[in-house]
């Protein structure tokens, strides 16, 4: 049988990584792409570097508690630029719309895009519109590219990460994934779980101060595949291990119980308004203090640390002090039978 594309190639887990390695890098390998950061970083002058990112949004349903596909696309692009320490400036907006979609829906999506772009001082500077026949796409797909500038003093990369560094999460996990799953319906129960979909621009700018920047090693927004995927990518690229502590990972009760009911591991579930930050231990408390002052960072916490290890892996210290492995998720989570 000829090999075919699986849904899981887009899940952000192991299959996505294999797809990138086996196909994307096979054809397009170059020194910028090979870094595999959330945004490509290219030097343009002695003072600044350019950050460039692109992302497609196919979320279903397009409206969910806490956001919609428009807000998600802009926030996601801003956050990807922030991951490399960039100041987000311009975004392009490309739409693929299914024939027959109500104009009112587009207006609702555009309003939320406008609102977030205005509040974050980002300009939508170019775009494209395509309409396809009914059934050729699911209501609307959005692709956004983003450009930002990075100060030359900022250099966040996998190779900066060293044993002793600490892992910070800016807030409670797994809310976006759960909210979207719930909005799809079919579970026979309701919940008040809201997506955490948000732009982290204000929050991250607050810690990109000259006295702190040298101590920030790496940032990544744990979207698809959740924090498990990001942490596993870090250990694989940096050749270190990470030990996280279950009791320190912030999670809301409603999310925790929803995951438990369906047999999901919240560590594998997507976030859309959180940043995972790795910093030197000396500055960690200071960073937490700054994050907590911002409304999007009030639950920020140190959840673990980088350790030296011959066999790179992510380790979870359970509530009871025992340790287990946190695996790179293979594909998206499926509910269990019992």
């Amino acid at each position, binding site marked *: *049988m000829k090999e*075919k*594309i*699986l*849904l899981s190639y887009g899940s952000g887990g*192991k299959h996505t990584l294999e797809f990138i390695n086996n196909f994307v890098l096979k054809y397009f390998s170059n020194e910028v792409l090979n870094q595999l950061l959330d945004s490509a970083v290219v030097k343009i002058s002695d003072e600044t570097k350019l950050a460039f990112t692109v992302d497609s949004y196919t979320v279903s349903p397009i409206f969910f508690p806490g956001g919609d596909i428009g807000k998600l696309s802009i926030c996601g692009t801003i956050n990807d630029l922030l991951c490399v320490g960039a100041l987000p400036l311009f975004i392009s907006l490309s739409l693929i719309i299914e024939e027959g979609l109500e104009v009112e829906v587009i207006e609702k999506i555009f309003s939320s895009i406008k609102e977030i772009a205005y509040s974050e001082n980002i300009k939508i500077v170019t775009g494209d519109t395509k309409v396809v026949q009914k059934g050729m796409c699911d209501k609307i797909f959005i692709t956004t590219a983003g450009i930002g500038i990075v100060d030359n003093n900022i250099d966040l990369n996998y190779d900066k990460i060293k044993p002793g560094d600490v892992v910070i999460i800016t807030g409670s996990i797994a809310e976006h994934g759960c909210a979207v799953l719930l909005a799809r319906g*079919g*579970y*026979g129960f309701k919940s008040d779980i809201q997506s955490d979909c948000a732009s982290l621009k204000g929050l991250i700018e607050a810690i990109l101060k000259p006295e702190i920047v040298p101590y920030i090693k790496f940032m990544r927004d744990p979207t698809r595949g959740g924090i498990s995927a990001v942490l596993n990518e870090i250990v694989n690229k940096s050749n270190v291990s990470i030990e996280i502590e279950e*009791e320190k990972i912030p999670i809301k009760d409603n999310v925790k*119980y929803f995951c438990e009911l369906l*047999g999901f591991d919240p560590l594998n579930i997507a976030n859309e308004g959180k940043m995972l930050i790795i910093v030197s231990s000396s500055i960690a408390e200071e960073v937490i203090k700054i994050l907590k002052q911002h409304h999007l960072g009030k639950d920020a916490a140190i959840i673990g640390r980088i350790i030296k290890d011959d*066999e790179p*892996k992510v380790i979870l210290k*359970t*509530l*009871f*002090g*025992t*340790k*287990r*492995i946190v*695996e790179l998720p*293979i*594909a998206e989570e*499926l*509910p*269990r*039978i*019992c």
Partner: protein
Amino acid sequence: MNHLYFDLPKFKDKKNVEIEVEKIHKLSKKINRKVCIMEVCGTHTMQIAKYGIRKMMPENVKLISGPGCPVCVTPQEYIDKAIYILKNYDVIITTFGDLYRVVGTESSLEKERINGKDVRIVYSPYESLDIAKSVNKPVVFLSIGFETTMPAVACTIKEAKRSNINNLYFFIGNKFFLPALETLILFNRNFLSPFIKTEMFIDGFLLPGHLSVIVGEESYLWVAERYGLSGVITGFEPLDIVRGIRMLLETFVDSQPRIQNEYVRVVSYEGNKFAKKVISEVFEPTGGSWRGLGFIDESTAKLKKEYEMFDAEKVFNIPNITINLSNTKCKCNEVLIGKITPFECPLFEKVCTPENPVGACMVSSEGACAAYYKYERCYLR
């Protein structure tokens, strides 16, 4: 149900767990020999691995995993037959998520869906009923699971009959757990065992919580009476599990084999009478094969005569498929009955992984090999 929800933190509380673990350590000294406790439920297997409970145990208390995952014990022929239906008839297959990625001889439901077949994941068998009502082609529900899932399937079938649905079928792969538990005990007793073994190596069982909600405490009394083995019906939170283990150890100390119920907040002595009744109205037991355990009398469900019109095997012409597993190095048979741990299988992690599973215990998320792989590899070797 509300009080259960709000009580949950108590069952995850570190202090509560530590108190029980301390008791376990004290009891283990009194026992003065090595004891083996088998959990026979896949969810226990996952929870023990996930919370690292194995590592909390004293040296002489060994936790081993049994055949309690419905997907693992479903024979490979079942998947092959389901795929046969999908390939040869224009149908919609509905299934629980667990079966979706399980690999048959050549394909899986996931792969067939990519090839354009209509496979839908449902959370309850009842959803198949709604799907059948909304389409003009046959819908086949892949019905697997123990007594835990059988009542919901039975109710769906009764409802389908009541409302004259004539395009919904059930491919029955359901299994009765209790006959398999007895087979397992007999294996261990060396009556049927293909292995050379001189003594019983299982000392007691953590009995499944969900399944016991249906069958009740009374269904296990024979385990102690006939075989002199202890069992504790146990819940799934960390505190439940360590408490269940502590209760088992107490029976080893006083040498009084008995069945106890740790999960009293949901499991009663006689079980759920309505659920038991509806199972017996729709299903009857017949002999059938289990992955790992082989053919077991009275262990497999089939539809009673008055519900035969819903039986996919009667409606679709499915060839007999037999699979020869004798050439494989896979040690699932021994893992499923607790003879070896997954780490002792030569294929574990090297050839057999959750993505490319060779055997039953790696295919399902609740299989022993999958649980050990996911949470414990690098630690127990």
